[in-house]
């Protein structure tokens, strides 16, 4: 299975990443080699084999439903790039460069 630059670009858009043309070229080649490597799994017969998604013995860990004090809001804002009146500031969702 060979992966094309178009497919790599599509996956990038799903992952909210953007590549320059030069990067796209490099990533397509490397992704292709990695996918080649992982494709050897296709030779393994896994008929009827269940998946392993965790290696703990624990199932549904429950806790008492008691109220606990949350983290102080000012403290939570410590690492926020831009905030005002206890709210996080972000740019407009609508592109400001386009005519409304």
């Amino acid at each position: 299975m060979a992966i094309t630059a178009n497919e790599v670009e599509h996956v990038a858009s799903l992952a909210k990443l953007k590549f320059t043309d030069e990067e796209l070229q490099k990533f397509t080649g490397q992704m292709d080699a990695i996918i080649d490597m992982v494709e050897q799994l296709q030779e393994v017969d896994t008929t009827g084999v269940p998946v392993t998604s965790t290696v703990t013995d624990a199932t549904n860990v429950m806790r008492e439903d008691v109220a606990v004090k949350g983290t102080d809001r000012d403290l939570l804002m410590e690492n926020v790039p831009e905030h005002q009146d206890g709210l996080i500031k972000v740019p407009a969702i609508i592109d400001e460069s386009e005519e409304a």
Partner: protein
Amino acid sequence: MDYFKTDLKGVHEALVKKDLSVEELTQETFATIKDRDQKIDAFLALNEEKAVKKAQAIDARGVNQDNVLDGIPVGIKDNIVTKGLTTTAASKMLYNFNPIYNATVMDKLDEAGMITVGKLNMDEFAMGSSTETSTFKKTKNAWDQTKVPGGSSGGSAAAVASGQVLAALGSDTGGSIRQPAAFNGIVGVKPTYGRVSRFGLIAFASSMDQIGPLTRNVYDNALMLNAISGHDSRDFTSSAKEVPDFTQGIDQGVKGMRIAVPKEYFSEGVDADIQAAVKDAIKTFEKLGATVDEVSLPYSKYGVPVYYIIASSEASSNLQRFDGIRYGFRADDVKNLEDVYVKSRSEGFGDEVKRRIMLGTFSLSAGTYDAFFKKAAQVRTLICRDFENVFANYDLIIGPTTPTTAYGLGERIDDPVTMYMNDILTIPVNLAGLPGMSLPAGFSHKMPIGLQLIAPRFREDTMYKAGFAFEQATDFHKAFPVIGGQN
């Protein structure tokens, strides 16, 4: 205090006898770091002011003579969050991240009286095997500064191996404690999945990540694991199983121990010198009274592809949180919200992190999910069963930690597949959630060789006993590097 010539107990005794104060020990440690780390580049940040204050406080109340770790300096991998001390995961994405809370392991080390001297370099978000994907600096191998320290806990391993600290914490998702421990000739342990709380460990692959200690000998390692283990209500995957004292009975020896050696761990990709060192180790264990048989782990050869699909898939999900909104790097010159996400992520993440996010997103996307993610999760089951079959009849598995010794800086960084294959001997342990140790077992062209011990789930005690017995019977752990000809 020369860390090459002592151990945790030795330093503790000196503190109790007041040969030196905790403050003097701390000051000396910083002096050594400032000198030696010019050559090694293991530390990303030092915590000098707070460390000295804490040392003075311990001196004021007196060192607890029943607690070996009290007042002893420790280094911390930079993906473990430390309250009030910048934690970057070696990524531009978190260059300015100042945690408002401690990881559970940090609370435990604080409680044990350990003094955090600084944060240690690593591969960005723990993705890499050489510490070269760090955004900030290239750490050097303690034995040869033209070679990589291994990774991703390369800073932790190099700091311990170069005598800057006696103990450090790292994290291991596919070998990230054991491989750098092997490359630097020290002891590194990845505990059983669930033994140590992951709360406050910046998530890479949540079904495999585990924090563990790196030290210069086996006993010190057991002391450190004692301090960080245990159930934590903030990590639902942490185990409620009682934590034994891992130093208890550590000197009981290996008489009657049933040891298995997987034939797959001696494939042609493993250097001849490393194969020879492991075969010597087998003879040592036999001489000490263990029985050793060859076994097979037939599915272990699929470990690398299974791991890269599963770990990358989990990473692509875990790393969605880095969007430039609430913390970390936010790109400038953005026109709308979508721009904040895409530009912050594209400028904030390095190439290896992007490759993993891309492979993970690809493996989980419609049309490829069954052939990639589901298939890998099924083969993971077969790898787990391989180990179950062996552990039905054996107490311990031994083999090499790595196929080669440390390679040159820059040698493999542009070849992801070769870099990934380097983890072939450590990855299956993470996939199955088992405990694993690497300890010094020889040298090849003056570079350290690591012996890997693998035990059944929650049987770290077996691993420590075997490691301790091997160490008593050999001299490899006594060797230390000369750094820049000046120590």
